[in-house]
């Protein structure tokens, strides 16, 4: 079920109504039932079976790991059940993802969100193993953690410790929380309907038929895609977090004004935060601090010198992380290259740190400072990510290379305007789009400004003049209403009288 389908809204309304009416103790089970129902609508019996397998296997492994830990067993003995369970679940995930290579129609679409819930459950298990979390004894409550419906299809990936309490508390209606939630939900729909859905067709047209477009158009397409994917993903996340808010569950943020990133490393702490956080805690640190890599580091220090050698573990771990980030997007060569390039650029800047420091001193352009340096760094990062993202969306790796090549060699600014107007959007559509994107960026600017001050965006908005709040709400609702209610069903006069 997609968030923008009317039947989802109906489902949500019913689920919430039942939730608030139910007694406190019953509410978590209402959420569980709703989650399973939602998943059944989204993926059928197969999906329910898969997620139940994960729930049961991780639940059991968690109890076992907890018991072993209490009994003081040795690391090796404790590690076995952990590894088997992870192997099982990640194995299923990998098999599904890579089967997409052999049978393009299958793949993760069959079991939507499998990546998200697998990572979420695995994180829990590793936390139990590390002693950070005590295992959940109630299998139904555990099932709710794994399958909580708002985050099931697109994340964020939560940590057990950060959501368990609220998830099982059965919080009732609270006006302040409800305001936060509804505000986020409306904003999320605004992003999805007014920006992401509008850009979908032109982006598809350019990426599917890149060979017939000039480099300028391809770059425009990449720019459109940047906004589309941001509006779609972050918009969806807003809806997810908003629903969570309504039932008193504070899910972790997944986006933090990504276009204000000053470096790629910085970017990935602002985009899909829950994934990079997961990878940092469960892959990057363990790998970078592992014995094998430490040995490699010592050997490298002998061969390449101190400076280079000591960076080996971090760079190897970095590559591992970003390759996973890449393949997360899809089990294709292009996605792999996407991850690889991110890893390569970050690793390169890691090794070139002394050189970059000198450059910063000589030119005075320093991304960490305010003013021109910051603007330069943000623009540079924006452009690099825009180009890399082509790999994430292109039909194939060779297509992505072609597109990049064309943007450099066949730029051709002439005829850009006519081409852009021939992609299905007219002048008025672009105008509306520009207004909506301006609103989006404005919101991000405000949020970025507030970051240091400690005041949340919500609080700031609540402080604003009522008239301003009303106008803003009216404008956003108007866009949501227009793009939500009237998406199809406009026949331009030229088409009514096509043969006149």
């Amino acid at each position: 079920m997609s968030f923008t389908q009317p039947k989802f809204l109906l489902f949500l309304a019913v689920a919430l109504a039942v939730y608030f009416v139910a007694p406190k103790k019953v509410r978590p089970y209402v959420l569980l039932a709703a989650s399973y129902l939602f998943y059944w609508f989204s993926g059928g019996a197969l999906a329910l079976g898969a997620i139940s397998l994960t729930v049961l296997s991780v639940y059991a492994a968690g109890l076992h790991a907890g018991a072993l830990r209490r009994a003081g067993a040795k690391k090796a003995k404790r590690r076995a059940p952990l590894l088997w369970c992870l192997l099982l679940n990640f194995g299923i995930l990998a098999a599904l993802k890579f089967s997409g290579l052999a049978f393009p129609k299958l793949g993760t679409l069959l079991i939507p969100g499998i990546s998200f819930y697998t990572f979420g459950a695995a994180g829990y298990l590793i936390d139990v193993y590390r002693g950070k979390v005590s295992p959940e004894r109630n299998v139904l409550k555990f099932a709710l953690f794994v399958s909580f419906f708002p985050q099931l299809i697109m994340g964020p990936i939560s940590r057990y410790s950060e959501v368990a309490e609220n998830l099982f508390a059965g919080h009732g209606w609270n006006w302040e929380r409800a305001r936060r939630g509804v505000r986020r939900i409306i904003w999320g729909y605004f992003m999805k309907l007014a920006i992401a859905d509008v850009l979908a067709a032109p982006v598809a047209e350019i990426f599917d038929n890149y060979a017939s477009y000039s480099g300028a158009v391809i770059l425009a397409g990449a720019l459109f895609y940047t906004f589309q994917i941001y509006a779609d993903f972050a918009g969806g996340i807003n809806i997810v977090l908003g629903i969570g808010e309504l039932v008193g569950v504070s899910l972790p943020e997944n986006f933090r004004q990504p276009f204000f990133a000053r470096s790629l490393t910085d970017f990935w702490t602002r985009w899909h935060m829950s994934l990079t956080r997961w990878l940092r805690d469960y892959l990057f640190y363990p790998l970078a601090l592992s014995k094998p890599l430490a040995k490699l580091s010592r050997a490298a220090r002998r061969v390449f010198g101190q400076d280079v050698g000591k960076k080996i573990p971090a760079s190897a771990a970095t590559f591992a992380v970003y390759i996973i980030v890449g393949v997360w997007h899809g089990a294709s060569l292009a996605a792999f290259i996407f991850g690889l390039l991110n890893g390569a650029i970050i690793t390169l800047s890691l090794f070139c740190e002394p050189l970059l420091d000198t450059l910063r001193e000589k030119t005075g352009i320093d991304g960490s400072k305010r003013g021109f340096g910051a603007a330069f760094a943000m623009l540079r990062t924006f452009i690099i990510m825009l180009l890399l993202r082509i790999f994430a969306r292109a039909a194939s790796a060779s297509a992505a290379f072609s597109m990049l090549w064309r943007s450099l060699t066949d730029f051709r600014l002439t005829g850009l305007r006519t081409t852009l107007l021939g992609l299905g959007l007219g002048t008025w559509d672009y105008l509306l789009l520009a207004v909506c994107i301006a609103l989006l960026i404005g919101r991000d600017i405000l949020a970025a400004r507030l970051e240091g001050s400690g005041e949340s965006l919500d609080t700031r908005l609540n402080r604003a003049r009522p008239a301003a709040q009303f106008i803003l709400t009216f404008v956003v609702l108007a866009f949501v209403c227009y793009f939500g209610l009237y998406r199809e069903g406009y026949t331009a006069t030229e088409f009514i009288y096509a043969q006149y």
Partner: protein
Amino acid sequence: MSAKRWFVMLFSAAVLVLLSVAAANFIIDPFGVFGDRAFDWYAFDMTENPRAAKLAYIDAHHDEYDAYLIGPSGTSSLSPEVLNEYTGYSWYNCFNYGADLAYSEALAEYLTQNYEVRALMLTVPYVSACQYDLEPESITDTRHPNITGNAADWLRFLFANPRYSAAKLRDYLSNSYLQEVFDVFVPETGVYDKSSRDVEPIGSMDAYLEAYPVFTHDYPDKFPMTQLEACMDALERIKALCDSRGIELTVLVPPMPESQLNNYFDADLEAFYTRLGEITPYHDFARLAPNEPRYFYDENHYRNNVGEMMLARIYDDSSVYIPGPEEDIDTQLRVLLYHHIVEAGETNADTMLLADFRRDMEAIRDSGYTTVGISDLEAYVNDGVPLPERAVLIRFDDGYLSNYTLAYPVLQEFGFKAVIFAIGVSIGHVTYKDTDTPITPHFSYEQAREMVDSGLVEVQSHTWDMHQVESLDGLDCRRGLLRRENESEDEYVAALSEDFIKSRAGLETGTGQPVTALAYPYGLHDLMSLVVLSRLGVKVTFTTEAGINTLVKGLPQSLYNLSICAISDLT
């Protein structure tokens, strides 16, 4: 703001959004459903949704009409004005594209129940037997709530996509004199505004098919008449309705081009006509001009001229020309262009030696060509009076005195006709307008009258003062009759009309001969100028483009924008 207040605010904002949409749709009213009080621009509304808007128009103006044309697009070219003359009723053309018999029946019922109806004219094309009672696909073919009786339809129009209202505002600001994509109707009569297509120059069949390839479209499958029974039952009910109320009902089958006629099974057609004949007398025009695509705007719409022919046949008006089944519909015409003749001396593109002119006349005679005049051309297209197989029109531009002194005697000698296009301000002048600058002399009105009285020469318009010359009028002169860059459409229409009326008045008074033809100064012309001139009564126009002209019987507009050729094209 407290959270509770915020929710109140949210709710009010949502309500305000919905109210704004409703208000915009109600006030701007892009479909005319609410009476279009603010704009009264039914031409636009009807284009967006003819069913709803025409009904709204009739609701507001029903006391002006007492007879209605109903049916699908095949009804659009039947003129209420012509019908008014034949029948004495006040007709309105209430056709709707895509209307089936179910809708025609509903409309007939609605009109007869609510308003005074003395006569109905209904077209029943073959396709009516293929589809019946179609559901509206979008708001643009949703019917008016008054005829559906469905209250929910008011809400559908009230909350229609606001883009339609926005489009109406945008188009209102860009509205032009010419008919555009968004105002294709004439609200007062209900017909299509075909002012542009009714002046488009028509020539040879090949040229027309190239411009409109739809006529060569080959349909892979035929259309079975699956709804014949439903369609005819509805027709029977309409007939009964009219009989019971004493309403004159005329039923007709409209003309279709060959590409459409071939799409139906013979058995179906037989059943169609049999059943039709059982229910009511009817007029069958299906094969009026099947192989003549020039008689159609496109596959589903025959021309206004053809509509007039149909009405003439229905009401027994023999003054209107209708081509016979085996007749030759078209013929060719060549036009030769001359300007100034001299006995000796320098020649150029516009100045010819008398001896050479005489040689041209001999060539015409020896090649077996016959000269014709404007009245011959008009008789051909209007009444089907045949033209010679090898027809040539001798044309002189500007109206130089040499035409009278040197050329006219030669014409008399050969007994040849010619047409001279005179510049109004220069008639009878040897100097330029009211200056002292000498120019090549032009003949006077008396001299023109003499030539006209001989029956050989016609003197027609080359504008009054739109043939200006930079060296004499300055760089900012009016060179040709096109709209100037900083001239508004209204200013232009006024200027061109004033100029032509002056030119025509001068010539008609001076020569006693009607003026219906114009040659464009410098050959400059466009669609807008042609539409304006046609509305002033110009029937024939001449350009300076090269080509051999094809004239079509029954299509007076084939006389527009005639091209010229060289004497070598005749020999």
